[in-house]
């Protein structure tokens, strides 16, 4: 009944409720937050039931907007690849909304709360739409919705946030216009915009120059949105200077959805053989990913600001995903898809912990973290779980996705990428150990002196429960994802990989 319409409702509900929040916020500000929770809770229900239906059915859900069959109409497709991504987006945005209730009041004035929540819901609308759509031009529209909300909500931050948002806008527009050009080139030679239709119409045309030009434009556009190595420079400034809950929303979700779009373009619209043999772009992507890992890890080592270090870590993780895509076999792509899901939760965990530390101490400088393990034990425990997952320690989920990535790279016989993955994990370990050393290892006398000077007795974290519980939920989900990784991969991700890949 109504459950047939969940593909449309999951995009329409946050859209309508964002404008309801805007209208209600003009009169009374206290009703904004409950409306946000209602919207995102409904979206979790929609996403989970769609995922259950896809697993039970074994095939994809197709939903035709306006009852026009493709290729005339726009269709929304939920298959094994985006069912998991939808559930992750819904869960993360719900928990970050709860987290932002108490957190955002410290950084933004009360009068701006309705606008904050409006932009929050619009951003989530855009992200859901990018994931669920099956039409290439509709993806551009929803990508722009998500990007505009990101520009505006980042500009609400502290000093320098507006300038960072402006530079992000210039960069992001180049990316979106390049994507639009790519779609235009595909439209010229086939006359269709539907993704499934394009995958049927394109194979006879694989050797034409138009297609190579269109594919290059698509790659550049998606690469800019995804923060791939040379064009990632918009990311550190804008995500650092944004408010804490905004970074906690954008950092896990936006770039990973871009990586999902890359997998869609390379493996659904285009046949995998196109990327490997006819126009060997997987070579370039592999080198770009590898250079990105090393370069961003070294840059992260030079930072003293905790959030800036985590922003460079996002670029490192995208590098891992791209190496997985570039190895173009079953293991590599399994690792890449699983790493998208893992990275969403890992980054959510780390960024919410960093935001809580910032709101408690007032600074993000690593060298000021002296006695944190006494004053904020739960936050630091959550941070450690996230850190161990990034480094790749079992039973956290990061270990399993890196395992599949290494298997994929070994099978493709690219030994340089193997060395890069291992060195990258080692550099991440050094990164986190810098932070944990400052927070945990101090001599007993120093700790007693500092605590007495500050007049602080040893208690549990003094941050409100509304910030504590989402953080702990993220940590628990990371461990659960690691324990159940076998089930997830065998039941869902295995069917998401196109059959044409060898291995």
């Amino acid at each position: 009944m109504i459950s047939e319409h969940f593909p449309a409702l999951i995009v329409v509900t946050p859209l309508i409720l964002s404008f309801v929040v805007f209208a209600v916020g003009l009169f009374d500000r206290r009703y904004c937050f409950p409306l946000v929770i209602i919207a995102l809770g409904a979206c979790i229900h929609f996403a989970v039931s769609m995922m259950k239906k896809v697993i039970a059915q074994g095939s994809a859900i197709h939903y035709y907007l306006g009852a026009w069959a493709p290729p005339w109409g726009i269709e929304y497709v939920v298959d094994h690849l985006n069912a998991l991504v939808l559930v992750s987006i819904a869960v993360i945005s719900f928990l970050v909304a709860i987290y932002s209730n108490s957190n955002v009041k410290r950084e933004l004035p009360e009068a701006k709360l309705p606008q904050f929540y409006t932009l929050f819901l619009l951003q989530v609308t855009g992200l859901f739409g990018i994931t669920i759509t099956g039409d290439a031009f509709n993806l551009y529209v929803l990508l722009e919705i998500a990007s505009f909300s990101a520009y505006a909500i980042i500009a609400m931050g502290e000093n320098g946030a507006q300038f960072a948002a402006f530079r992000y806008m210039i960069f992001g527009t180049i990316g979106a216009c390049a994507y639009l050009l790519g779609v235009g080139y595909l439209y010229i030679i086939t006359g269709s915009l539907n993704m499934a239709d394009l995958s049927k119409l394109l194979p006879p045309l694989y050797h034409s120059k138009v297609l190579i030009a269109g594919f290059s434009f698509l790659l550049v556009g998606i690469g800019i949105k995804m923060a791939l190595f040379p064009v990632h420079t918009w990311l550190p400034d804008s995500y650092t200077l944004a408010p804490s809950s905004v970074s906690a929303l954008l950092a896990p979700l936006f770039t990973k959805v871009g990586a999902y779009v890359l997998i869609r373009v390379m493996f659904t619209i285009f046949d995998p053989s196109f990327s490997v043999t006819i126009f060997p772009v997987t070579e370039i992507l592999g080198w770009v990913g590898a250079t990105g890992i090393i370069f961003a890890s070294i840059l992260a080592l030079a930072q003293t600001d905790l959030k800036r270090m985590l922003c460079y870590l996002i670029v490192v993780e995208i590098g891992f995903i791209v190496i997985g895509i570039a190895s173009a076999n079953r293991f590599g792509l399994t690792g890449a898809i699983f790493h998208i899901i893992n990275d969403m939760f890992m980054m959510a965990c780390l960024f919410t912990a960093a935001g809580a530390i910032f709101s408690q101490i007032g600074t993000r400088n690593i060298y000021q973290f002296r006695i944190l393990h006494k004053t904020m034990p739960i936050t630091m425990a959550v941070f450690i779980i996230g850190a161990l997952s990034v480094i790749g320690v079992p039973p956290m989920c990061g270990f399993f996705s890196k395992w599949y990535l290494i298997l994929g790279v070994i099978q493709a016989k690219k030994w340089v990428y193997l060395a890069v993955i291992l060195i990258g994990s080692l550099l991440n370990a050094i990164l986190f150990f810098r932070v944990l050393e400052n927070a945990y290892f101090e001599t007993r006398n120093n700790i007693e002196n500092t605590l007495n000077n500050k007049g602080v007795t040893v208690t549990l974290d003094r941050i409100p429960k509304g910030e504590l519980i989402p953080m702990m939920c993220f940590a628990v989900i990371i461990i659960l994802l690691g324990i159940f990784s076998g089930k997830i991969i065998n039941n869902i991700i295995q069917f998401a990989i196109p059959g044409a890949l060898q291995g």
Partner: protein
Amino acid sequence: MEIMVGKFNYWIYIILIMVGFYGMMAKNNLMKKLIGMNIFQWSIILYYISIGAKKGGTVPIIMDTHSAAGQAIRAIDYINPLPHVLMLTAIVVGVATTGIALALLIIIYKKYGTLEEDEIIEALKK
């Protein structure tokens, strides 16, 4: 010669893209970057509309459908309306981008008193 004359719409849009790109990258003033971005977006809109044009095609509006029965509509008579519809969306996107960018520029000007990029970076470093 054939490439120059036969595909002149490609030449126009490529030149406009490069002009916009140069404006975005090389100019120091933020307002000029914004204008470069605008030129960049509009050139892509012009390109899309140019690919929908046909020789001898007319406006894609069907007149007198209720007249004689068996009125066959030949697609070759009309220009392709789909790129126009797609570009309507792109124009709206361009307008929204310009609106957000101008609002950001006003806030930046109020804070730093200047719109030159290097002066703003200097002020941010302090």
